[in-house]
């Protein structure tokens, strides 16, 4: 037991002395998490820039583009008038989400009920924003068609009235106003109130907090990176001959390995504790859920360290070991719900991700942090992680002598 503590103390000193690596292991996931939150979860919503080349210059064209600047769309779409040539050049440069070209005679065609065509050029490098522009334009055109049909008579009167050079006579204005009123009255039974009513029901409870939703994933990611980095130390010890020296000492290789993992677990636990404290400060994690979350993270860290150590001792060289561990770590990080939440993945990928060790650990960490863990499942999970670490420890310690020699 004393040698176990000696070995752990030695490795803790080495981890402490290599503090830049420690910072890197913690820093990378935090940086990745921060970037994800900034890119997808920040307050600033993405905006679509719509370039409008209006060759028609009539009221209809202005009404059409004005529709993009009404209500919530005004926050999402920025309309900028341009000349057609400039618009096309800027689209080629990828400077906007879309270019709307209103051809000459468009307004007249709409008023006359004749076929008319608009040209919308979209940016192929964007997906969502051009689609919003297209959908909005479709809705506007359909609305225009409905209005055209309802107010067919007054619109015809306006169309015939504006053909001349002078202003329409008072009698014509009066006739048009009366025609609008009648058409409105006729349509009101099915327009007011609308036949279909949309009711939006907001879910009860706290508002969705992107950072908090991602936070458990970031913690698991930090543990995953750190366990992967710590596992490389068996190769360092082999390269510098200290493993061989340890194996000729009158101590069990298992104790040497256990000391190394104990030190690794202590470092992982320290990082978990710091992470959880940060989580409480930044995202209001419930204090009563923190001790169990801490225990779970420390145990998961140990199990991941054990898992990566097996890969290290199975590799034929240090370089191969590094490649293998990195080749494991990155896909695990991607699939395991830390980079992308399971909810945002295709179902087949989410199912796969939930089966990864870190994905499995993440689901349980979330349950613990939400204060809703199922005791039975949690007990089995703790036993599974501990059992995995023990079994791997036994296997690796048996292989150490042959591996070192």
């Amino acid at each position, binding site marked *: 037991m004393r040698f176990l503590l000696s070995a752990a103390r030695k490795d803790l000193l080495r981890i402490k002395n290599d503090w830049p690596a420690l910072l890197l292991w913690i820093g990378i996931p935090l940086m990745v998490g921060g970037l994800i939150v900034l890119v997808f979860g920040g307050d600033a919503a993405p905006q679509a820039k719509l370039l409008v080349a209006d060759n028609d210059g009539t009221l209809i064209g202005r009404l059409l583009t004005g529709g993009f600047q009404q209500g919530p769309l005004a926050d999402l779409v920025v309309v900028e008038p341009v000349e057609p040539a400039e618009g096309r050049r800027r689209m080629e440069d990828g400077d906007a989400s879309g270019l709307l070209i209103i051809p000459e005679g468009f307004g007249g065609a709409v008023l006359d009920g004749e076929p008319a065509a608009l040209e919308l050029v979209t940016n192929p490098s964007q997906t969502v924003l051009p689609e919003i522009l297209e959908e909005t334009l479709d809705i506007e055109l359909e609305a225009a068609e409905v209005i055209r049909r309802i107010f067919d008579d007054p619109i015809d009167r306006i169309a015939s009235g504006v053909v001349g050079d002078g202003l329409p006579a008072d009698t014509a204005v009066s006739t048009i106003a009366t025609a609008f009123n009648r058409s409105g009255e006729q349509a009101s039974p099915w327009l007011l109130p609308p036949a279909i009513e949309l009711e939006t029901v907001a879910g009860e409870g706290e508002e969705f907090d992107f950072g908090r939703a991602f936070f458990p994933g970031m913690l698991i990611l930090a543990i995953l990176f750190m366990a992967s980095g710590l596992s490389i130390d068996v190769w360092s010890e082999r390269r510098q*001959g200290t493993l061989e*020296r340890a194996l000729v000492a*009158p101590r069990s290789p298992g104790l040497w390995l256990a000391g190394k993992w104990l030190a690794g677990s202590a470092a992982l636990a320290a990082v978990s504790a710091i992470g959880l404290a940060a989580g409480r400060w930044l995202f209001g994690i419930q204090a009563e859920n923190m001790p169990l979350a801490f225990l779970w993270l420390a145990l998961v860290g140990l199990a991941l360290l054990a898992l990566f150590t097996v890969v290290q001792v199975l590799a034929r060289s240090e370089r191969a070991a590094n490649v293998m561990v990195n080749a494991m770590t990155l896909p695990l990080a991607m699939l395991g719900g830390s980079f992308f939440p399971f909810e945002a993945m295709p179902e087949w990928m989410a199912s796969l991700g939930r089966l990864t060790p870190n994905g499995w650990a993440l689901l349980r960490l979330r349950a613990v942090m939400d204060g809703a863990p199922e005791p039975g499942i949690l007990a089995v999970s703790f036993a599974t992680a501990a059992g995995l670490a023990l079994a791997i420890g036994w296997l690796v310690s048996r292989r150490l002598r042959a591996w070192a020699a």
Partner: protein
Amino acid sequence: MIEVETLRKEYDGLVAVDDVSFVARPGGIFGLLGPNGAGKSTTIGCISGLLSPTGGRVRVQGHDVAREPRAAKARMGVVPQEVALYEDLAAEENLRFWGEAYGLRSGRLAERVRTVLETVGLLDRAEDRVETFSGGMKRRLNFGCGIVHEPEVLLLDEPTVGVDPQSRVRLLDLVREQAAAGVCVLYTTHYMEEAEALCDRLAILDHGRIIASGTLEELRGSMGERDLVRLAGTLDPAAVREAVRSLAGVEVVAVGEDQVALAVPEASRRLPEILNTVAGTGAAVRETTVTRPSLESLFIRLTGKELRE
């Protein structure tokens, strides 16, 4: 005491050590001498318990290494061929860890760490990280880690490879001090002069087998009183071999197209005769070397090649 009986070690069918037997006694320095790849490190590996022998038996202070590994290892100190230290820890922390690995605790541990730092001349650098040390300092600390627990048996695997002359002298002194204190020292090297200067008993290994063993005097005696004469140049090996037969008491040890090695009694007196005989075969001799009887000349005589080849 180290007792090695008919030791054999195979790796995937390749025999690294075969039928090796010797006894190293307390207070003495037993040298295992041989070129690179002769099987010295494999022999040390089997004695230290790092490798499992394919056959034979090793006892350390009466404890069978295979059956009582813990008891045998507790009495051993090992100084590996390569420096085996935690470069990211201080010298003191390295000694402390290896002392604890051999069961030293608290006051005794602190005392031994300090004594060893003093012995290896690193007391003033005790708190410095090993990565800041020179090669010679690392070698001395490497030695210190092997003796921190005061072993009864000390295994040294080529501890002076790549060491500067000053540190080498210091290391050899340290080895002598251990033997003088009653420790049984097993020392492997491929430096003949080192073995001659240090060891009281020797075994010469080649291709995994002991080809000669005994005290330094016994081994020198097996060479007779003959010197080793080496003539380098352009030779006809068959003609030289035939011509040398006519020289009384001269034996061809090895001959090739660019060199011939001869065992010659009173070489300095007979050198003109030898040169005339060899030149008579049409050889062009560019260099002549005469060596007094030594382990090197014995090794050449036994194997037909130089130790460092």
